[in-house]
């Protein structure tokens, strides 16, 4: 099977509330998929179901043939799924370099012995990966600064750098444009496109319709936990169900 990410009948209930209701969809290798929906549509929950933060009530999630149900987040991360957070979760009291190192180490553990032998191949690979990620996100010049001292926008890139250092096959970005101004959002759009051009499969959960429409090749729309559309941007934009979900209908 060449399946990349498949979600089958994913359902998540919180008490009486069905946050994600029987959603079936898939992401193919190399795609750049957007996940949108009005507030409370279940975007973040679906996202948490994939990354292992929230367990499924029923249904299945498979990534490259491995069933993710019930797997711990750190195991899922090691399988090659990197993610960023809507409300940032960088390590404020660590340097930018160390923040990214954690990502590189997380999926590529190194023992104390490796660190002692400074010429060790593994230590070299790790610092190489860290610098690559830092250069990719243009953070190399602040490598020794504390993460807490970075601007908000820079911290977003730091989170992406940390995820990139994991060398993931699949990157999930949770509302990366939240809190950014228009020019920063534009810059971010170009950055996401360039990551995609490098062959990374990306899922973008986003509120900013402009960003999603301009960047994604396929868009999944959720409303009240249900999938209501799954198509290319132009089709989604014209879909009456989507318009209804976003604008409401006249009684």
């Amino acid at each position: 099977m060449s399946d990349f990410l498949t979600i089958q009948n994913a359902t998540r209930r919180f008490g009486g509330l069905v946050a994600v209701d029987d959603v079936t969809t898939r992401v193919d290798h190399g795609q750049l998929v957007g996940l949108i929906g009005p507030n409370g549509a279940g975007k973040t929950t679906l996202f948490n179901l994939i990354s292992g933060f929230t367990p499924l009530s029923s249904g299945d999630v498979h990534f490259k043939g491995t069933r993710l149900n019930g797997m711990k987040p750190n195991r899922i991360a090691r399988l090659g799924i990197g993610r960023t957070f809507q409300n940032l979760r960088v390590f404020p009291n660590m340097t930018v370099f160390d923040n990214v190192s954690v990502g590189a180490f997380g999926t590529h553990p190194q023992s104390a012995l490796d660190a002692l032998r400074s010429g060790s191949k593994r230590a070299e690979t790790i610092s190489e990966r860290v610098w690559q990620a830092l250069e990719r996100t243009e953070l190399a010049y602040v490598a020794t600064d504390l993460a807490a001292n970075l601007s908000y926008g820079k911290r977003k890139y730091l989170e992406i750098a940390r995820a990139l250092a994991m060398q993931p096959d699949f990157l999930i970005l949770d509302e990366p444009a939240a809190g950014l101004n228009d020019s920063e959002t534009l810059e971010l759009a170009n950055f996401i496109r360039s990551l995609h051009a490098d062959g990374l499969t990306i899922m973008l959960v986003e509120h900013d319709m402009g960003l999603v429409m301009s960047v994604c090749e396929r868009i999944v729309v959720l409303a009240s936990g249900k999938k209501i559309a799954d198509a290319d941007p132009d089709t989604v934009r014209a879909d009456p169900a989507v318009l209804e979900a976003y604008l409401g209908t006249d009684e």
Partner: protein
Amino acid sequence: MIDPYYLQQLVIGLSLGMTYALMAIGFTLIFGVLNVVNFAHGEVYTIGAFASLVLITAVAPPFVAVVVFALAIGALAGFSLERIAFKPFRRFTDEASLKSRAMREATLLSSLAVSIIAREAIELLFGSQQQAVPFEYLINQPIHLGPVIIVTGDLIIFGISALMLIGLQFLLTRTHVGLSIRAVSNNPLGARYVGINVDRTIIMTFVIGGMMGAAAGILVGLYYGVIFPAMGFIPGVKAFVAMVMGGLSSIPGAVICAIILGLSESVAVTFISSGWADMVAYGFLIVTLIFFPQGLFGARRERV
């Protein structure tokens, strides 16, 4: 010319401060990753001393072997403590439970319970009186440095503690385990999503803290020749004061404050009776809490 007596007190204070520092690091590391105070930390110190004493009386090994044995016992004690008193309250990993104060603070009581049980168990096994330490293991042979007289223990404690501090620094900044510990202290959820096994990291933190605590216990035991079931209480309190003074989650802060504490206590006995010397620590604690509620070295704690 300074009276040699003061120099002597400074040397003693320095080695005393180093043992507080070893204890304070355990507190600080654990507070960092879990945001709770581990009340059983003083008992790790006691267990380190008693286990080593048992080894000494049984096989009379070389001194180095005693220290290595204390480290191993400390690691085991830290591991068991985490499994018994802390792990059961971390059953749920969803965000609500992680943020629940009740879930976290329940470990205040469970660690206190483990500490009482451990102390009573030691008392049942060995009795509450002081244990005799074989004379040849005491580290109190005098050394004359010009007019100053110190004992071998001052050098040994300073040397071993310094080595452990350097080792810790290396561990925290250069290795996978150390980066994981710092990452979990900074943001446990963020750490989880970059592939870090948070559970294992917490165990490692207890193991490292336990090793340092147990080493401090046996070193002080052999220095004063005094080993008894309640011996961990006072150093535990001192280490706690050092941690608070240092700003709760700053390791350099805790180490510096522990040394300041040791030095002030040993200089204080010149002017006040030694029974009152313990008041120095409590005085520091009160002054810190009133005038520096963030600690002397504590950066403003940021919530992201």
